């Protein structure tokens, strides 16, 4: 029964063009069995196309999809043991919730007792007991999403694909669903591949994130790796590191308009960018021991749990949890720790 839990997915030299548009430009990626893998990127980066190729809903121009030891590139969607949670949920409007969940099992002509057992299991797992006799149009967005999840999961797929699963939910529900998805995945041990453009969603849920841009995977790693060590400007900006400092390479580090910083990893460029996350910049009213820079508050934005301060020089954005309210024109000391600075590649 649990054989599906050791099937790795390998995407090899995947290229997809629509007419003259190259949507995927040679993507190579492995997704390990049992991991929560997220494709993160802006709209039009090719992430959904890649997901649809894995589902069998799109045929790649070249390249292959390998699941376990089988090349499934040309296997039609209805023969793949891979199921999808659609962005619009795509519940069958003429069927009850129970029948929607049973749909895949009925297609496969599984015997009635087994269908009943598995559907009820799915209903219980996603807490749909009270909804099972309703029609899809009587459900809220969050409920529809749970039905859609149950409908895919009762098939016990090798891989569950999720296409922007939370885009239709409101912010509060989204946070809740993110945690639930993660719990569900850990419990089942099924490989989940999710597509999203929301960095929070990706960071909360994933074991690994692949950041995509213009048809390529730019960086792949654990949420910590991608968040702490973005490889280039695109990844850094996409994951919310707004501070970019122009830098020149010098002996043992870089020289910026905020001074010299010793770096652990010396960049391979002569002139480039270093970044520091807004929440890592330390501020104080007294001059720190080293690396202190006196800055002026240009603007301050209240965000509930924190303030975002915009400082010059360096056009820095600083996120501070301090309850102290700074005003435009205030002078404060900022302290940059060299180890928090990341030199970006091209």
């Amino acid at each position, binding site marked *: 029964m649990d054989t599906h839990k050791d099937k790795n997915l390998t995407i090899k030299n995947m290229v997809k063009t629509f007419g003259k548009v190259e949507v995927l430009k040679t993507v190579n990626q492995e997704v390990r069995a049992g991991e929560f893998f997220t494709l993160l990127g802006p709209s039009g980066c090719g992430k959904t196309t890649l997901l649809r190729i894995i589902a069998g809903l799109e045929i790649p121009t070249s390249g292959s999809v390998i699941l376990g030891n089988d090349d499934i590139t040309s296997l039609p969607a209805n023969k793949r043991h891979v199921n999808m949670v659609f962005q619009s949920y795509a519940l069958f409007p003429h069927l009850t919730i129970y029948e929607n969940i049973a749909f*895949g099992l009925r297609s496969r002509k599984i015997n009635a007792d087994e269908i009943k057992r598995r559907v009820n299991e799915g209903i219980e797992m996603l807490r749909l007991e009270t909804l099972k006799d309703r029609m899809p149009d009587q459900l809220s967005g969050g409920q529809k999403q749970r039905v859609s999840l149950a409908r895919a999961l009762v098939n016990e797929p090798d891989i569950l694909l999720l296409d922007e699963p939370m885009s239709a939910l409101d912010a509060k529900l989204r946070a809740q669903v993110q945690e639930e998805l993660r719990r569900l995945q850990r419990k089942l041990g099924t490989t989940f591949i999710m597509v999203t453009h929301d960095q929070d969603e990706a960071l909360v849920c994933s074991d690994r994130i692949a950041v995509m841009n213009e048809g390529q995977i730019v960086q792949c790693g654990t949420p910590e790796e991608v968040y702490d060590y973005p490889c280039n400007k695109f990844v850094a900006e996409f994951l919310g590191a707004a501070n970019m400092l122009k830098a020149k390479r010098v002996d043992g580090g870089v020289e910026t308009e905020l001074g010299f910083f010793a770096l652990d990893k010396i960049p391979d460029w002569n002139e480039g960018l270093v970044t520091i996350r807004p929440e890592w910049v330390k501020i104080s009213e007294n001059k720190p021991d080293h690396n202190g820079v006196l800055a002026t508050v240009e603007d301050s934005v209240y965000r509930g749990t924190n303030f975002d301060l915009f400082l010059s020089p360096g056009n820095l954005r600083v996120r501070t949890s301090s309850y102290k309210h700074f005003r435009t024109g205030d002078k404060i000391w900022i302290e940059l720790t060299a180890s928090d600075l990341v030199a970006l590649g091209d």
Partner: protein
Amino acid sequence: MKNKNILWRGELTTEGSLLRKGLAFLSGGISWLMIFLVLPGLLFIGVSFATRGDHGELIWKFTVENYQRLAGYSLFGWTPDYLLILWRSVEVAFVTTLVSVILAYPLSFFIASRPAKSRYVWLTLIIVPFWTNMVIRTYAWFYLLSPELPLAKLATALGMIPPDTPLYPNAIAVYLGMVSVFLPFVVLPLYSSVERLDWALVEAAQDLYSSKIRVFMQAILPQTAPGLSVGIILTFVPAMGTFVVPDLLGGSKYMLVGNLIQQQFGSSRDWPFGAAVSLGLMVLTMISLQIYNRKGKEIEVL
């Protein structure tokens, strides 16, 4: 009470004024229907129970003889002739509708899959036959089915007809003519449903291990049912009563109820019997639609 001010769709008015306005708007349509549909209909029911005079005139003497005749009873005992004509009409309408639907599905999907601009070209091509009179279109089939052209030659080669004979009059010719007349009536409403199809449902069905048939039954049919229903009714009902096509392409042997009615009001000058047959056709059409309504729902549940 009637003069109380009320707010109706953003307009301050009174109930009495609303009522007067509503009646004024409705009166045109209602009187049209009364004068041209309800009254003639009632008159027709009356005529069907009247007697034909010796010279074809109408005698207002109550009789059920017309209906007995339609059911096959006459001075010479029982014959199924008229019932057969009625049954054949149902059969022709059914087959015409079925073939039109089978052809309309791929056609609608084809048109809907074209780029937006060329879709209108294709739709226009579907509508073009309407620009020509149905009699002329039907006569065109005479030429298309004539012995010199490939269709008849093919039929000869297959041994279906002797050499140098046209492919009419026969049942095939009737169906060719009927389907060509009614296909647009199915394609146009069906296309409007297909155009709005939610493809995510089709993909969901595929993703959930459905065979092609199951994808059609569960993802496409339920979504296109509204357009399909309109197409089926627009085809089946007029096809039941059609007489030009079977008259021209079917020959005298292929009489349908439409021809029978036309004959009664035309050459036979037997209005009472014609009225009885017409009402028989109406009842049969309504029964068919009722069956379709019930069966249609069952299919959707499948």
